[in-house]
C-alpha cells in the first residue's frame, strides 16, 4: 500500500495572493491523502493573514497538517493564528503529532517549528552570554519535543514536519554564512532517534530539494520557491520501485521522478 503526501512550505499568504494556490489545490483530492504545510504560512503572522491561509487551504477534501514558521511569529499573535487555522480544520503541530488513517495505512506526523543553531562541527554552543545560551536552548528544547512527539505515535509510517532544516544538504544554494539561521543538527538527531520515513521542511528559499540525515532518513525541502509548483507529492510505500512510472493520471500528475 502507498501513502500519498502532498507538501509545501513558505507560502506567505496575505490578501494579495488568496486564490493563487486554489486551482492547483482543487486537483489534490484523489492524488494525495494528506497535505502538509511546512511553516511560514503567513507574511507577518497576523490573525487576518491566518484567515487568508484558512480560506486558501481549508475545505480541501484532504486533511491538512501544519507547523508554523518564523514569519508566523512576527506579530506575536500565535494563539490567534493557530485559532484561525484550527477553525478551518487545519491541524497545527508544535511538539506533538497526529495519526491519520489513509487507504495506504496509518500515517503519523510529528511536528515542531524548530530553530537555528547550525550543523555538526559548526554550530552554536550552550555557553557564554545568557542570550547565546537561550538561543541554543531554544533549539535543544524544540528538538527534544520533536523526538518525544515522533516516539509517541503508533502508526505504519512516520513523517517529521518542521520549518527549520534538520540537515545542511537541503540548504545547498544558500550562503554558508547563514546556515546556523536556517536549521540545526539537533532536529536531525531527533528524526534519527525514531523510525522516521521522511522529514519535510521549508525556510530555505534558495536551498535545494533533497537531502539525507546522518541516519539515512530522506529529507525534502518543500519551500515554495524551491519546488516551484503549488505543492510536491511523495508516494511512500514498501513495494515501490524508484524507477517505476506511476499510473496516476488525474490532475495532470502522470509520472514519477527520482
Amino acid at each position, binding site marked *: 500500500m502507498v501513502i*500519498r503526501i502532498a507538501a509545501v512550505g*513558505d*507560502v*506567505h*499568504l496575505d490578501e*494579495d*495572493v488568496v486564490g*493563487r*494556490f486554489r*486551482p*492547483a489545490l482543487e*486537483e*489534490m483530492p484523489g492524488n494525495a491523502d494528506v497535505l502538509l504545510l511546512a511553516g511560514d504560512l503567513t*507574511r*507577518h503572522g497576523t490573525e487576518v493573514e491566518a484567515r487568508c491561509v484558512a480560506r486558501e487551504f481549508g475545505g480541501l477534501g484532504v486533511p491538512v497538517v501544519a507547523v508554523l514558521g518564523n*514569519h508566523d511569529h*512576527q506579530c506575536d499573535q500565535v494563539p490567534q493564528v493557530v485559532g484561525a487555522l484550527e477553525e478551518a480544520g487545519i491541524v497545527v503541530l508544535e511538539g506533538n503529532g497526529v495519526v491519520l488513517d489513509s487507504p495506504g495505512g496509518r500515517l503519523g506526523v510529528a511536528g515542531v517549528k524548530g530553530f537555528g543553531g547550525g550543523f555538526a562541527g559548526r554550530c552554536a554552543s550552550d555557553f557564554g552570554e545568557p542570550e547565546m545560551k537561550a538561543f541554543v536552548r531554544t533549539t535543544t528544547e524544540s528538538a527534544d519535543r520533536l523526538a518525544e512527539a515522533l516516539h509517541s505515535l503508533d502508526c505504519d509510517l512516520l513523517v517529521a514536519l518542521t520549518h527549520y532544516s534538520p540537515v545542511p544538504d537541503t540548504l545547498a544554494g544558500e550562503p554558508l554564512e547563514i546556515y546556523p539561521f536556517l536549521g540545526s543538527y539537533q532536529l536531525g538527531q531527533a528524526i534519527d532517534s525514531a523510525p522516521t*520515513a*521522511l522529514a519535510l521542511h521549508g525556510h530555505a*528559499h*534558495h536551498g535545494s530539494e533533497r537531502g539525507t540525515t546522518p541516519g539515512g532518513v*530522506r529529507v*525534502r525541502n518543500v519551500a*515554495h*520557491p524551491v519546488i*516551484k*509548483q*503549488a*505543492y*510536491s*507529492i*511523495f*508516494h*511512500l*510505500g*514498501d*513495494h*515501490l*520501485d*524508484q524507477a*517505476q512510472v*506511476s499510473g*496516476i493520471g488525474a*490532475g*495532470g*500528475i*502522470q*509520472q*514519477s*521522478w*527520482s
Partner: protein
Amino acid sequence: MTRHRGLGAGPPDEYVEAEIHRLLTEDPAVAEQGISVVRTERALVLYGEVESAQRRDEILRRVSERFPDVPITSDIGVIRKQAPTEIEQLP
C-alpha cells in the same frame, strides 16, 4: 537600522548592501527573507522569488525610495503555482 552616511558618489558599498538586505526583511511592507542583494561594479542587483507581482513592485519601490541615489536592478520573479505534473516515489 543604522543610517548610512555618504550615499552619493561612487559605487554602492557593503554597508548599503547590508542596509538593503535588512530593509527587505524588517520593512513590514516587504517582509521578505528570500531576496538576495548582489553588489556589482555599477549597481545593486536584487534577485529571488516572491508570491505576487505586487510584492515584487513594492520591493523595488521601497528600496528606491530609501536609497534614491543607489542604482538598483531588479531580477525578482513570481513563483510558479501550477499543480505538480510528477510525483516522487520513496520506497
